[in-house]
């Protein structure tokens, strides 16, 4: 008996389920795998409070059920409480995706009171020294441990998020133990996705196959041990999989992403795709954008697909994979994701894996850190 059904695929334009609200690109940390674009938005260009409140109302009316407040660091916005309150008023399930270092008991109590449903706290490692090196923030890890306790004390459920890569994957068992120790009800192990900052750093971050196998075993063991107590979300990284992931649950099917400056995107990396004029929520309603915007419709469904996707029985499972990855690797955003073994470009993934295996024992290349001023340099 299965009381919880996965959401079934439905007809054409269903309303989005989730709103990813990137409130700001400001962040005290500098992770070299940050998913933010290389050109980050400055505070002066950010949407104002009134615009975000309207977006939240429109989202609720459109059928959005969950809102993820993210960034950058969403707590850098002074109006965060007001936004959380409005989300709650519209029945939206609200999730705060935070690095935690700016939070304290008073702020957390206020957020809980405003109706926040859940907090996702990111960790860079289980080892404090390594974590602070990756995050580029002194004593950040210690601070996060305190904040994790404060989140629980405020009565908020907690997800511990670990982004894993070559330089910390060995400590996955310690990360799982840490998540358990701080009372997380969910642990998310996310492999770095290689676009934006992470693609710049791919050689320094990509794990070897041997590392990955040990990691998979550690997750399987922990899942068994923590069954019914802690949910562990873990996905094998694209480079080592035979099939791609359903990016964002399919292009413009589940999620609408709003950037700090108010552009609406079907995926948080869609700004890397050339030839699109992304619509602004300053000029159009969320509903109109979702239904009619040509960019949203560009890769929606299956009719845009080339072979081998077009005639593949997986086409409504993975929706052809990730457009941004297809572009980054093949030069064509409309190609089958090279993560798929059926893609004629799959060898590029295999080559990157082979490289990762050869360099795995040597010293890791230097990391390029996410800072507003380095952005000009990597271009």
């Amino acid at each position: 008996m299965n009381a919880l059904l996965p959401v079934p695929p439905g007809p054409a334009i269903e309303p989005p389920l989730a709103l990813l609200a990137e409130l700001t690109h400001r962040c005290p940390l500098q992770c070299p795998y940050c998913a933010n674009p290389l050109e980050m938005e400055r505070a002066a260009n950010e949407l104002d409070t009134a615009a975000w409140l309207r977006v939240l109302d429109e989202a609720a009316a459109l059928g959005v059920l969950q809102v993820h407040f993210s960034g950058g660091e969403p707590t850098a916005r002074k109006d965060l409480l007001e936004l959380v309150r409005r989300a709650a008023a519209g029945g939206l399930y609200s999730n705060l995706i935070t690095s935690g270092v700016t939070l304290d008991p008073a702020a957390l109590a206020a957020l809980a009171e405003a109706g926040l449903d859940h907090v996702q706290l990111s960790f860079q490692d289980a080892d404090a020294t390594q974590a602070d090196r990756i995050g580029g923030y002194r004593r950040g890890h210690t601070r996060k441990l305190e904040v994790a306790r404060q989140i629980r004390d405020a009565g908020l459920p907690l997800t511990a998020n670990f982004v894993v890569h070559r330089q910390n994957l060995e400590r996955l068992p310690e990360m799982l133990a840490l998540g358990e120790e701080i009372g997380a009800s969910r642990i998310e192990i996310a492999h770095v996705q290689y676009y934006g900052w992470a693609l710049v750093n791919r050689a320094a971050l990509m794990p070897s196959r041997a590392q990955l196998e040990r990691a998979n075993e550690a997750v399987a063991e922990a899942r068994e041990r923590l069954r019914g107590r802690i949910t562990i979300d873990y996905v094998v990284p694209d480079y080592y999989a035979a099939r791609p992931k359903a990016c964002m649950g399919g292009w413009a099917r589940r999620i609408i992403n709003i950037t700090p400056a108010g552009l609406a995107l079907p995926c948080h990396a869609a700004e890397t795709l050339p030839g699109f004029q992304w619509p602004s929520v300053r000029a159009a309603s969320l509903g109109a954008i979702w239904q009619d915007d040509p960019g949203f419709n560009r890769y929606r469904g299956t009719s845009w697909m080339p072979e081998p996707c077009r005639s593949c029985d997986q086409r409504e499972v993975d929706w052809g994979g990730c457009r941004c990855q297809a572009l980054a690797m093949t030069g064509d955003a409309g190609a089958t994701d090279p993560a798929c073994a059926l893609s004629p470009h799959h060898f590029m993934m295999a080559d990157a894996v082979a490289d990762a295996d050869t360099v795995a024992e040597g010293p890791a290349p230097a990391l390029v850190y996410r800072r507003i001023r380095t952005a000009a340099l990597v271009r």
Partner: protein
Amino acid sequence: MTEGMTGEGAAVPAFNRGFRLRHDPVRQAWVVLAPERLFLLDEPAVEVLKLVDGARTVPDIVDSLAVKFDAPRETIAADVAAMLQDLVVKGAIRL
């Protein structure tokens, strides 16, 4: 595991923090909202979950449903136990 995992006894099921049952007027469906996920519910699950309030015991829930659906108590009890067990494993409720 606790005695309540068998589904009966005096266990009082309750939603775990971060899990919320809600009616979605746009899709005209009941959903459970959870961190980074969302579940559509089949009809029996909706009937059970509407009664999960952190106060009713499992036998209370079975009694209500047996009356409401005019069905044998044992059948309902078995269904409810299996469903609650599934929801416990998925982290949505505790017993």
